[in-house]
């Protein structure tokens, strides 16, 4: 069974139809990349999948369970979490506090009212592990607003990972990054275990072809093609609209 299935969803803002009969499927463990020119509707697709925006019609399934109208907060508890194209963090809190908030979301003690959060040992342990694993232990007590842009982008992913999702939705994790940071992020995404499936929107073609098992091309809110990297690379229509007539097609 596919982990995520999107069936014929439509979405419009007033008169502007942004998604038209969009369908796609993500298999367990798959790295599924969505590409498409600016304004194609990629972020809107994420917002619809996570029910940040209600869909007009269509159906969405997570591991076979319909989630079309489920509140976005509930989806996390079913195993789906996401990042944002623009950093969406807690800028006035420290790195550690950001991680605490992300980790607590799936803890049973999240409704506790008079017992100090930081007294929970598992929380401290998991925070330490994450900080150590991504080699940012020294940044622990730094306010997020004072982090470099690249570090903030990384934290964006770490917060989404905190709930140990089965499927992770990444919205342009490398946007605005330097080439070096982009390469690092691509490496990081490759390092993520295969127990988590990934649906990722990405512009950088190097990154796309280095991680994709499958690529879906979105154009004017429609799926042009969904196939292997090879199929996408060789498709005339995709070259036409996305690579500008093939001139800039990636070698």
């Amino acid at each position, binding site marked *: 069974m596919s982990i995520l299935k999107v069936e014929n969803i439509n979405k419009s803002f007033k008169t502007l139809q942004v998604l038209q009969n969009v369908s796609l499927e993500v298999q367990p463990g798959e790295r599924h990349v969505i590409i498409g020119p600016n304004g194609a509707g990629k972020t809107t697709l994420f917002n619809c999948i996570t029910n940040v925006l209600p869909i007009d019609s269509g159906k969405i399934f997570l591991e076979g369970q319909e989630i079309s109208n489920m509140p976005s*907060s*509930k989806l996390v508890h079913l195993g789906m979490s996401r990042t944002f194209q623009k950093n*969406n963090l807690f800028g006035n809190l420290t790195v550690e506090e950001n991680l605490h908030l*992300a980790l607590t979301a799936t803890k049973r003690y*999240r*409704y506790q*009212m008079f017992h100090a*959060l930081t007294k929970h040992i598992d929380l401290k342990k998991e925070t330490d592990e994450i900080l150590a694993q991504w080699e940012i232990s020294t940044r622990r007590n730094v306010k997020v607003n004072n982090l470099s842009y690249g570090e903030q982008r990384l934290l964006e992913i770490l917060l989404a990972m905190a709930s140990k999702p089965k499927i992770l939705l990444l919205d342009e994790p490398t946007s605005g990054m330097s080439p070096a940071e982009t390469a690092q992020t691509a490496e990081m995404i490759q390092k993520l275990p295969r127990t988590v499936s990934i649906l990722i929107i990405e512009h950088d073609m190097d990154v796309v072809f280095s991680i994709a098992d499958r690529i879906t091309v979105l154009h004017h809110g429609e799926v042009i093609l969904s196939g292997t990297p090879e199929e996408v690379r060789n498709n005339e229509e995709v070259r036409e609209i996305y690579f500008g007539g093939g001139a800039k097609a990636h070698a």
Partner: protein
Amino acid sequence: MKKNILIFIVFLLIAFVLPFVLSVYGIDLVSEIFIMAIFAMSLGLIMGYAGMVSLGHAGFFGIGAYTVALLGPHIPNSYLLLFFSICLSGLLALVTGAIFIRTSKFYFLMITLAFGQLLFALAWQLKQWTGGADGMKVSAPLNLGFGEIVSPIGIYSVMAAAFIIVYLLLRFFVESPVGKIVKGIMENEARMSALGYDVRIYKLLTYTFSGALAGFAGSLYGFYNLFVSPDVSSWMFSGQVMMMVIIGGVGTLIGPAIGAGLFIFLQNFISTYTERWPIIMGALLVILVLVGKGGIIHWFALLKSKIFYKKRKNSDDYAPQHVEKEEVVN
């Protein structure tokens, strides 16, 4: 942390010594300050830790005060009266909050204002029970199991203890998961929701807790003043307590308490000199708010940073909103 404990001990000492140096009038005034400080801290919680600005918080205060006044003659047990006040105001906050928190910030302000006015009107209209605009006497002397407490020092002790208990409760609350989460929601609601939090539950829990504390303050006021009138739930009073919170400092626990102290003190001090005290009070408050951006509590923090952190290079980017964080911000 150790510094906080030290400050707490100093506070306890002062609270202990005060009754010996103050006149009866002074003791009475400080008792009132303790009550208003509890009330202001309850509003400060939702304003500064949950981003909910209410103009109807006196409604809960009124529920507490009238509970003592109306049930006092029938229930001779002070503990039960306090318990009922807290439960009633908490329950009312839970039910109304479930509706109010769905609204946007501006609308929340308006609907809480309307809610407060509704209770005010009720106290006014239900003349046969409340005495209407004339108010009513409270015939429920405070008795906590060791005789009736009527002396100013007795009342003072109870109010001081209540203040300390509420402060500690709030301290625990803001450090707890729910307290941290609701603060996260205030900063970035969309992300909290994306992280898996049902944000409404957390706002509602906080609002309910705050309402219950306001009700507690109201019931203490009933015991203290032995007289209640509809004014205790008027929008004027809601506005005054908001002033206390803002003067003292939004976003800290103790700030609103300090604001309450200053407000009550000034009000009494100025009103002994002139009938026109509201005008002078108003002008003073305007100045305080204009000059003391962030509230009085941040003056202390700035002063402290001047004294203790002079040698630090980055004392310039000292962020007053994050007093407790000073050790960790780089």
